[in-house]
């Protein structure tokens, strides 16, 4: 069976690259003693497929992967065992049996919460307005194919600014702070929080030396109103339907709604 998992990358672990996260998961899957399906060949690897990945340096509450098992296992058990085996900073939030249809294509956009030091919320608000008003904003990006220019504006769906709740205990000018809530389309190459900041710098003179902490809060299908549809919704519905048809519905409120235990 295949199980789709939503997980969070938090705290210090946001500095882990996707390779690091993938390796850590692979080891945790071993330690958790789950009946994993393995690839064929000389060095078999557990069958895991990833649906995108948050960039190194960014935290996330909404990352997704799919694992393949050779036996039927209650997704709640999978989540609990994996959480016990994962290091602090990686946590499974939810697990559901995979329904029909691919997972990756249900994620067409991300919501980011970017805490920016060195500017006030007011300055940030003005910068965001200028950026949204621009027809195109090119930013430079070093990809594996070399340096290229990408249009960051085209990928941005919305920008909102909030005040920082508390002033963090760091030196001098960095005490200023604003929070940018950005909804960004999944495009190729990806437009990341860094690119949004570069775009703000390019059109609105946001200083390039700002320090920022980004968290991906949600991923999903971008609907017509600019909202994001939970990518596991379809699987949850499918699992529930299957249970009802088998007449074996448990008395819990929702089979796939696994509590987060950390």
């Amino acid at each position: 069976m295949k199980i789709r998992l939503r997980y969070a990358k938090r705290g210090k672990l946001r500095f882990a690259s996707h390779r690091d996260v993938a390796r850590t998961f692979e080891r945790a899957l071993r330690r958790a003693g789950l009946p994993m399906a393995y690839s064929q060949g000389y060095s078999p690897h557990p069958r895991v497929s990833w649906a995108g990945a948050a960039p190194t340096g960014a935290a996330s509450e909404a990352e997704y992967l799919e694992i393949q098992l050779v036996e039927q296992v209650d997704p709640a058990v999978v989540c609990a065992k994996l959480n016990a085996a994962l290091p602090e900073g990686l946590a499974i939030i939810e697990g559901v049996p995979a329904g029909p249809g691919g997972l990756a294509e249900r994620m067409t956009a991300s919501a980011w919460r970017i805490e920016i030091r060195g500017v006030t919320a007011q300055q940030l608000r003005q910068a965001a307005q200028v950026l949204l008003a621009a027809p195109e904003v090119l930013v430079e990006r070093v990809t594996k194919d070399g340096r290229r220019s990408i249009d960051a504006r085209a990928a941005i769906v919305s920008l909102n600014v909030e005040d920082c709740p508390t002033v963090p205990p760091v030196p001098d000018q960095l005490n200023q702070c604003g929070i940018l809530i950005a909804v960004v389309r999944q495009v190729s190459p990806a437009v990341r929080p860094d690119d949004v900041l570069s775009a703000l710098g390019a059109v609105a003179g946001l200083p390039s030396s700002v320090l920022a902490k980004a968290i991906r809060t949600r991923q999903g299908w971008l609907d017509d109103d600019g909202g994001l549809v939970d990518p596991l919704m379809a699987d949850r519905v499918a699992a529930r339907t299957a249970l009802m048809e088998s007449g074996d519905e448990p008395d819990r409120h929702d089979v796939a709604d696994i509590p987060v235990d950390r």
Partner: protein
Amino acid sequence: MFEQLELLLPRVSKPVQYIGGELNATVKDWDTAAIRWALMYPDAYEVGLPNQGIMILYEVLNEQHDVLAERTYAVWPDLEKLMREHRVPQFTVDSHRPVGEFDLLGVSFATELGYTNLLTALDLAGIPLHAAQRTNGHPIVIAGGHAAFNPEPIADFIDAAVLGDGEEAVLEITDAVREWKAQGQPGGRTELLTRLGEIDGVYLPGAYDVSYLPDGRIAGIVRNTERVAHRVAKRTTMDLDEWPYPKQPLVPIAEIVHERMSVEIFRGCTRGCRFCQAGMITRPVRERSIEGIGEMVEQGLKASGFSEVGLLSLSSADHSEIREITKGLADRYEGTGTGLSLPSTRVDAFNIDLANEISRNGRRSGLTFAPEGGSERIRRVINKMVSEEDLIRTVATAFGAGWRQVKLYFMCGLPTETDDDVLQIAHMAHRVIRAGREVTGSKDIRCTISIGAFVPKPHTPFQWAGQEDPDIVDSRLRKLRVEINSDRRIGRNVGMRYHDGKPALIEGLLSRGDRRVGRVIERVWRDGGRFDGWSEHFSYDRWVTACAAELAALGVSLEWFTTRERDRDEVLPWDHLDSGLDKDWLWDDWQDALSGREQDDCRWTPCFDCGVCPSMGTDIQVGPSGRQLLPISPAGR
């Protein structure tokens, strides 16, 4: 202080190496700990994290209820620059505490090329570089590891060094610090250091004075307090089964050099390879029992989730029950996707059996052997007893069993070496390819030869040898390349990897140097020297310049410390540090080397009086025990 650090991390490469949070890492309460150790491996995290010495001491110390141990590693220059700019001190990765706040800083030196990184860490930690300038509030800086058998070049920068096995010594040091603190720190730092100097195996450079002859040689090394020994003898942990560490191997988030857990199956080696410092200073052989190994593998795999186990030692196939161990482990983990590896094996058919056994369920890609010398003659000089016929027979067996690539390790610049000894490497590589083609009927055979420049090390028979000039080493390597390619039809299947002779010369300076080399290290560091073990950071010119500036006035030089052959009566900088080896025996072995006489292994032949066992009160421990493998059933899936 992670809040300060995390603002810098987005601007450095591979920030994950600075965050800690490894599986099985221990974070203890700072305030309730009576003794706090910071343990450092003075190289990049990816190299330092898997270090067994640090991992063992970290666990041994943290098991003590009132002791806290955290780890720290060398930071790369990009982060160092930002840390200086933003006044962020050297930190531990476990709970991101400033290193300057710990009671002790233990630094493990596997290689001397980490010395400049020690200075960076001290400076970033706000600890005075010179031990003499430290006061009560500063951590006690203690060096360990193989390089601690001659810590003279860093004598100015360390407070103490521990010779030999550290498991028991760190606990005794901890006890001494605990007692001194509980007594209200009587006599201050000086008294604490002297008390540490009274512990077996602990060397206080400051308690010994060195005097020099007009020609630059050492006149004498004399203690300046009667509370320390005339000579400091190394520590030897005799029963490895009592020390089954690491029990909980650290598993990093970041990528590291070896993605596997390690179990040390024995310590010490009596093969007697004359270039090998590790083999000389870790005698006698002490084997871990077959049951002990089985349990460590089982527990370690469970605790770590690694899919490969390395059976570590200086010559792993020499464990007296290695056949039972490898067969037992291969049986137990069959079908679980768990790989076994056996580094450091010697050249004989028995090893092919072993290699076949451990690769039973996996791929037969490459086998590695270390003949070390190209000619029969030079192999007698270095006491690496393997004939070319044996090697070819072994390799042919390997190719016959399905292996397709052979890697051969050699050294260049060995004592008495001529061009011809090195050119013989090409001859050997060609024979390997021909043998492989013959056995397999395939042209798809690879032989990679990997060559390092020889560095004479303290406490070995070659401690008196003149190190070869790097220009000669480099010219021999060039001639070797031409020779390999002299027959293109064979040469194209031979790969050649080598390091040039220059870093080796600096390693030689730091290995056999005395206290006068300290000022060279400091100048190099002030000129920007960092990560000298990494070719992209190492600058030969920086070292040459610093040597000229600092040593000329003393009447010595880089060459004086390296390429000069020493006489029998010269006082060596490490003569007051006792590895157990009898200096007369070492000298006789050096003379035997020069006349090409070999020395047997005392595990299988009578004792040849190297001196270690009687002087250290130890004995070789070799099976077979006759016991069954592991009291645990097959793991299954």
